[in-house]
């Protein structure tokens, strides 16, 4: 350890002391499982007793499993669609709400849009199951137009749109709030100057608001990129034998393999691959949006 750091630790020992619980938390709940998981992925599938190392055979097993390959595909479709939709729709919502003149209407809409984010996935799953049940609200509406009822939850073709819709419904309000905060931070005199300069509302959005949101957009994009391969909860609450092939994501695959089928090594290999994939997608996104540049 270099002298400067030691000196600083001495000087600010109280701050380092405060930092300790967090460090312990991450060591116990993040770094230890992470290292343990990597180790497991090279060991035989055993719950108790010694686990002999088996080289890369777990990885080979995972990569030759058609279920895993299908879950990669599902993950990419659901994750990337969610990423794009969250990003674009929340931005649109924030921009539209910003144009609402009545503060009461704006705040009410904002709160309603944000509300689902506070619900746990199981509640949301329940709500959606009710709405899209055979006798649910969705079919009621269809019935009004004399359309035959659809069994949304069991229709494989509708499985992905439903899961994606759930995610959008839950998260768009939250992300739009992040945009709204950034919009509010723009100095009001800029808009006044633009009015005097004869710029219409659309031009103001294009030339003042969107450039000012660049930083927030980048942060949200990276945040969403990190989550592309880690969709689990909404899948877990919606999955059933009819739609499993369509919406089984990587984490559900890991869960089924490791927790339900006790194949710890195979599951760990899958999890390690998810992490590698996340690293790649995040790095690619950062590069694409020039995250480190202004």
């Amino acid at each position, binding site marked *: 350890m270099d002298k400067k750091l030691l000196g600083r630790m001495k000087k600010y020992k109280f701050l380092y002391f405060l930092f300790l619980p967090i460090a312990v938390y991450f060591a116990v709940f993040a770094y230890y499982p992470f290292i343990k998981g990597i180790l497991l992925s090279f060991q035989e599938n055993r719950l108790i007793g010694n686990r002999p190392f088996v080289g890369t055979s777990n990885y080979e097993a995972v990569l030759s499993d058609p279920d895993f390959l299908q879950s990669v595909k599902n993950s990419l479709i659901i994750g990337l669609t969610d990423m794009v939709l969250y990003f674009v729709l929340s931005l649109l919502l924030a921009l539209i709400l910003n144009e609402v003149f009545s503060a009461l209407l704006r705040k009410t809409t904002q709160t309603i849009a944000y509300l689902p984010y506070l619900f746990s996935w199981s509640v949301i799953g329940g709500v959606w199951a009710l709405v899209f049940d055979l006798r649910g609200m969705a079919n009621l509406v269809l019935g009004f137009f004399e359309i035959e009822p659809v069994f949304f939850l069991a229709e494989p073709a509708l499985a992905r749109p439903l899961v994606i819709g759930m995610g959008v419904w839950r998260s768009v309000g939250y992300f739009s709030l992040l945009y709204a905060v950034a919009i509010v931070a723009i100095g009001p005199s800029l808009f006044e100057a633009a009015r*005097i300069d004869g710029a219409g509302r659309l031009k103001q959005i294009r030339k003042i608001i969107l450039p000012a949101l660049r930083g927030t957009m980048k942060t949200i994009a990276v945040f969403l990129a990190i989550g592309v391969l880690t969709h689990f909860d909404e899948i877990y609450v919606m999955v059933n034998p009819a739609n499993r092939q369509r919406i089984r994501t990587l984490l559900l695959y890991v869960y089924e393999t490791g927790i339900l089928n006790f194949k710890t090594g195979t599951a760990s290999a899958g999890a390690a691959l998810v992490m590698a994939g996340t690293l790649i997608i995040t790095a690619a996104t950062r590069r694409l949006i020039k995250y480190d540049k202004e």
Partner: protein
Amino acid sequence: MAYLELRNVTKTYASRSKGEKALAAVRDFNLQAEAGELVVLVGPSGCGKSTTLRMIAGLDEPDLGEISIDGKIVNNVHPKDRDIAMVFQDYALYPHMNVKENLAFGLENTRLSKGEIEKRIQEASSFLELLELMDRFPKHLSGGERQRVALGRALVRQPKAMLLDEPLSNLDAKLRVVTRKNINAIHKKLEAVMVYVTHDQVEAMTLGDRIVVMDQGVIQQIADPRTLYAEPTNVFVAGFIGTPPMNLIPGIAADSSHIEALGYRFSLEGEDLGPLIGKRVILGIRPEHINVVGCGDTVAYEPNILRAAADMVEFLGEQSLIHFTVNNAELCCRTFGEELCRSGSEYLFRFTPEKLHVFDGETGRRLGGSHG
């Protein structure tokens, strides 16, 4: 007909909570300004000067009254069509555009040809020495440079009215002087009516052809700087204009030419206190009209002479300010190069009789005549 005219303009802000009175930001504002004139609105914060400016710009709407620019009533005209330009206190430069784009932005929304736009930008930027900054972004500019860009943005529009909202308040003393010169030069070049808002009376006095002094939404006086200084219309203006401000001393009109105040008797010249005899008045005198006529016991008693020890002497180079207290009234005297008394000894201050101002104790209005 005046170039810029405000007739009975009134603006009230709705009260925030129940039971609170609605706040009149500007009340019955009347002003006529000619092309080429620089009018300064000055007053303490919250006096309504910025609101007035914003109403001229069209950013706020008056509740009552009319605003006309070049003979056309503009109450219902969009800011962009009023042919005005505004310089904001925080400059309001578009942060994601470079200097050139900032200058061009307003022009691109007009029907001007590309050549004309380019020409105007060239002209303005060479006038304000911005040529080397054209590719820079606002955050890479110093405060003074930003201010010049903001002025340039107004200049390229060649507006009929140029509105400036406290444009110097974020600059240091040196830059203020330079920018003041810039503003003066632009004013001469544009020949538009310029309305300049500031809370700084020094700025107002140095820049304005005419000054509008405001307090609590009401115009207190409109006059040129000299008149404002020499003949303030009421106690507020007297106390607001001038640094240090006019000494204001409460007293009683004893007879038609004498006022009793601070336990002394002051005689006035050329002022008839007739209607105020026996009533409360306020005696006003500028610090430079109080002379040191001696120290200690050197001079015998005379009317208009006060004896007091100095609380503090501020040496300012060519002048000194002597602060003293008489009967709990804090007063200030400005001397130019005269001998100061030994510390601890008392001064004899003489109040020049023909420079005394008398204000009505009830209304605060200045009494009649034209003192110089």
